[in-house]
């Protein structure tokens, strides 16, 4: 999947932007390891709400980078900073902003 997305990017955007996206993901992964996020959610993955490096940290890194790049701030350094911020959001903010469902709310299973 990553290779296909990389191929798509090679066709549609310039090398600097591709490099910025890659560095955003790489810095998110590195900071994710430093702040001790798990690499993968526990199995079965499709029902797991665990915040891990692969999901959703990389998705947040890619999405935030795309937003920032489209707003006009581009470049390798911006990519790295966005990656770091994404990992920190995953570790410290995401659970607070979007908590996993714990107790069933009235009317929900």
């Amino acid at each position, binding site marked *: *999947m990553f290779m*296909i*997305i990389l191929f*798509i*990017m090679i*066709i*549609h*955007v310039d090398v600097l932007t591709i490099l910025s*996206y890659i560095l955003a993901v790489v810095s998110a992964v590195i900071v994710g390891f430093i702040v001790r996020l798990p690499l993968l*959610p526990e199995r*079965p*993955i*499709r*029902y*797991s*709400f665990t915040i891990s490096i692969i*999901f*959703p940290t990389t*998705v*947040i890194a*890619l*999405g*935030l*980078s*795309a*937003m920032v*790049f*489209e707003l006009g701030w581009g470049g390798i350094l911006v990519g790295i900073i966005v990656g770091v911020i994404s990992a920190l959001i995953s570790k410290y903010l995401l659970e607070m902003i*979007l908590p*996993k*469902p714990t107790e069933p709310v009235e*009317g*929900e*299973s």
Partner: protein
Amino acid sequence: MNEIIGVIIAAVLCWLNFVLIDTWMGLPEQPGVKGAEVIGRDVKKRGGDLAGGFFQGNIVCSPDASAGTILSSIACYTIGIPAGGFVAALLVFIGNRLCADPGYAGTTGALTIMVIIALASFIGIPPEQFIVGMLLAIVTIQGLDHPRASILLGKIAKKMGRYTELT
């Protein structure tokens, strides 16, 4: 490419994208929230399939691969490839978490349709035709005949080993 043919091809690609990913991610296995269960059981009562009903209910109650597919198509149309797909994936993930859903189906759907749109651009199908195609695709699941659509979805779920164990 002729616009009508392009829309039909896009509709087929969107249909396969969201149905296969949603089934793979276990939408027919269990209802995520009470609303999805009510829809699933109602569809079964009307002669449909329970797993297919859960699939339809889950689509209604949270943004899954169907929402990812249409949002990614719209984002690719407005801000381009690949930025549109990445932004759509993030937005669908946030929407999923707000709806008590882990978010794998939606984000995967958004990213895969971005890849499909990029590849389809080589044969002359632009993102706007994917927007129309996705609307047609979702009509076949949610807008024409719930029981018959649910039976088809149930068969696909059985084939992919994602059929519900609930009765």
